[in-house]
């Protein structure tokens, strides 16, 4: 049955507005309608000045990501009925980007980061030969398959805590792309891509706060966190981690803690009635560190 729902949509016109503002629209809601359908209805029937990006309306082109009730995702495959909170549905532009107009944000920085990781096979000149380069078994492709489905919707960047504090952070999507090419058996750039990524982005991947948001917002279920962790691990094993982190790792190895317990801390604990700590935790942690390749 058709019902009505309120769309609360963030608007911003650079020519007339200093600050974004909100406008509410009533939308006829039929079963099966998506949030994009709702926006299209508003544009066609109520307010033609509302701007948003859309193209395929089938969840594959990556154009239409917005924040729905605070979480980022493409809106063309989001059912209205799954996203109503208190009779309303809040639609805002992606965060961590500048707004061009209404729900349209400037993605130049996003694309720039993708470009930074050399997202192509450095397998030399491509030529017309009667042969595939890929002289591999299908098993070698599983890492590519896990990651190549990214649709560049930028939802992960919008929800990223590290980007919120530092917009220069390379961001999960570019890391995923780098991962895809590093695991391509035809690629010859290998770790050079990784090193350059670090050189160009300062602290690079280490800025990631491991908040997990990127994995949660990804509409294509890309294991973003796994990719990020794998980069961190390989840098670590090549002894290329930032100094601060190396010290942390050494501390862990030595005493099973990230930093040394000083007198003050111990006295504070006593004062607060907390149980005493064993000074050395290392034996308990050792097996874990070994398994993760942090300790030798």
């Amino acid at each position: 049955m058709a019902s009505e729902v309120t769309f609360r949509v963030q608007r911003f016109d650079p020519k007339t507005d200093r600050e974004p503002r909100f406008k509410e629209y009533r939308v006829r809601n039929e079963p099966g309608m998506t949030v994009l359908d709702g926006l299209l209805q508003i544009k066609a029937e109520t307010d033609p000045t509302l701007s948003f990006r859309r193209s395929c309306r089938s969840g594959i082109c990556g154009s239409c990501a917005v924040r729905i009730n605070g979480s980022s995702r493409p809106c063309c495959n989001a059912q209205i009925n799954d996203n109503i909170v208190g009779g309303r549905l809040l639609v805002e532009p992606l965060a961590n980007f500048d707004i061009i107009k209404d729900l349209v944000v400037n993605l130049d920085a996003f694309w720039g980061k993708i470009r930074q990781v050399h997202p192509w096979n450095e397998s030399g000149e491509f030529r017309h030969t009667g042969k595939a380069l890929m002289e591999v078994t299908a098993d070698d492709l599983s890492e590519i398959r896990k990651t190549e489905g990214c649709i560049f919707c930028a939802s992960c960047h919008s929800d990223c805590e590290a980007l919120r504090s530092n917009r220069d952070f390379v961001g999960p999507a570019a890391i995923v792309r780098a991962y895809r090419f590093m695991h391509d058996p035809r690629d010859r750039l290998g770790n050079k891509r990784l090193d350059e990524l670090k050189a160009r982005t300062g602290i690079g991947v280490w800025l990631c706060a491991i908040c997990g948001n990127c994995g949660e917002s990804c509409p294509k279920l890309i294991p973003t966190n796994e990719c990020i962790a794998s980069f961190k691990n390989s840098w670590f094993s090549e002894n290329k981690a930032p100094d601060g982190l190396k010290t942390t790792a050494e501390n862990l190895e030595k005493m099973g803690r990230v930093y040394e317990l000083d007198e003050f801390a111990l006295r504070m604990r006593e004062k607060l009635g907390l149980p005493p700590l064993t000074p050395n935790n290392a034996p308990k942690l050792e097996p874990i560190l070994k398994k993760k390749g942090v300790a030798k």
Partner: protein
Amino acid sequence: MTVFTHDVVIVGAGLAGMRAAIEASRQGADVAIVSKLHPVRSHSVAAQGGINAVINPEDTIKDHEFDTVKGSDYLGDQDRIEVLIAEAPMNIYELEHMGAAFSMVGEGEALAQRHFEGRLGTIDQRPFGGQNFPRTCFIQDRTGQALLHTMYENLLRQGVMVYEEYYTTRLVVKDGVVGGVVALDQRTGELHLFRAKAVLLATGGYGRVFSVTSNAMDVTGDGMAMAFREGVPLEDMEFVQFHPTGLYPTGILVTEGARGEGAYIVNGKGERFMSRYAAGKMELAPRDVVARAIQTEIEEGRGVKGRPYVDLDLRHLGCAKIQERLPQIRELGINFAAVDCLTQPLPIRPTAHYSMGGVPTDVNGASTLKGLFAAGECSCISVHGANRLGGNSLLETVVFGRRAGMAAAAFVKGTALPEVPAGVLETEKKRIGALLDARGPESVPRIREELQTVMFDKVGIYRTEGPMKEALAKARELKKRYKDIHLSGGSLVFNTELIEALELQSLLEVAEVIALCAINRTESRGSHFRRDFPKRDDQNWLKHTLARRKGDDIVLDYKPVAITKYPPQERKY
């Protein structure tokens, strides 16, 4: 207002446009792409099935040629089809060298059950409709996406300049020579002139002429309309392919995979009605046969719950099989129609899918206008004739994109920058400004919807003279009403209301041509099915339609089909 100058300007950044750009740049030309979408958003991204090529030693070039010619209902030009098919294998390998990770033989199968025996490291191929050999290469179920991304990344590698989100409003022509385009930077709202020695159109198809379509919202036939307005003919515009299984109500594609796995198509009375149309093949009959059967059921009132759809029922396949073999289709139903195919049938109806017609070109992409090239779905070479074979259009984008890029680069060598008409940018600015100031009583969305509905209902799957004439009259009336549209004005920054108004001009232009060409072709061939002329008529109609604008009129002309090896036979499956 800036004037940019390049050797070659390519309009469109789908597979065809980007492939052309890479090639022209590799040949040393200064190339720029102007595209209304970011390249990665182009509609090529939506192709799922795959791309055809003869790469298995057991397959033959001749078979691929014949399947294509037969599929085209003998309207495809055989000399061009020969080029398409001969160059297919090297283009597949080239894509693979560029970085596409094609699905490989044995991938995804448990080690013990692998069927590849000695074919390790070979690109896998799947069977596709209308072909007698499994020759469709694929990348899982996202072939278009993976190829488009690969192409984009190679474009970056090649360092080609891309003007992203620039809407091209017109071609610039003087004394029968193309000298560039005018485009609107959507981000700033500024209009710019792009001068060039060659312009290459790669703007895709015109699916949005119809109310139900599998095509993206931006597939509005802009390039064809632009060329047509400058007196360039359009070829075979009456041929529009309908896919039988679009999700109701939007028309999003439900892939053939579902029927391949054994799904039933059932009408409102619970009948598996395909038994009345193709008892032998049932649901697996060719696309056009299934599409017409579904449409008949709907038109004769046997839709489900009296509505214009029938059911695609998968329930008898069982939860396990659906979850294992068709997870994407289940996801599609849940996300886009709130229907879980484990417990409910999916509502489907035929959907406009592919535009066979377009700007006529030679085998190197050159059009009849000096300096103008075209490639991809917006062109008509013609390799698809009256009906495209699944998997042949992605192939067309790379084979002829590459050729057109090469030819454009060769063309600009030694060519001087053509003159452009004086004040062309100012004139265009005035035109856009007037549109922005339009305050009439008519609405763009309403005109668009009326157009799309009448075209789908009357120039769609079934065609008859009377209704088609009504549709043509309606299209012309809507064109008049367009003069009184209303826009909100305001700033030009990402003014999508203005863009939609411009796109509607293209739709109106193209729709009129489609209707006129369809009325004139008094036979049935391939996708063009006339109830009043249900037979193919080679005597009178084995020829291509050419439509050309002459002032307010459109004149039709015809040209012969190139037949080399395969004389016309009846098309039976």
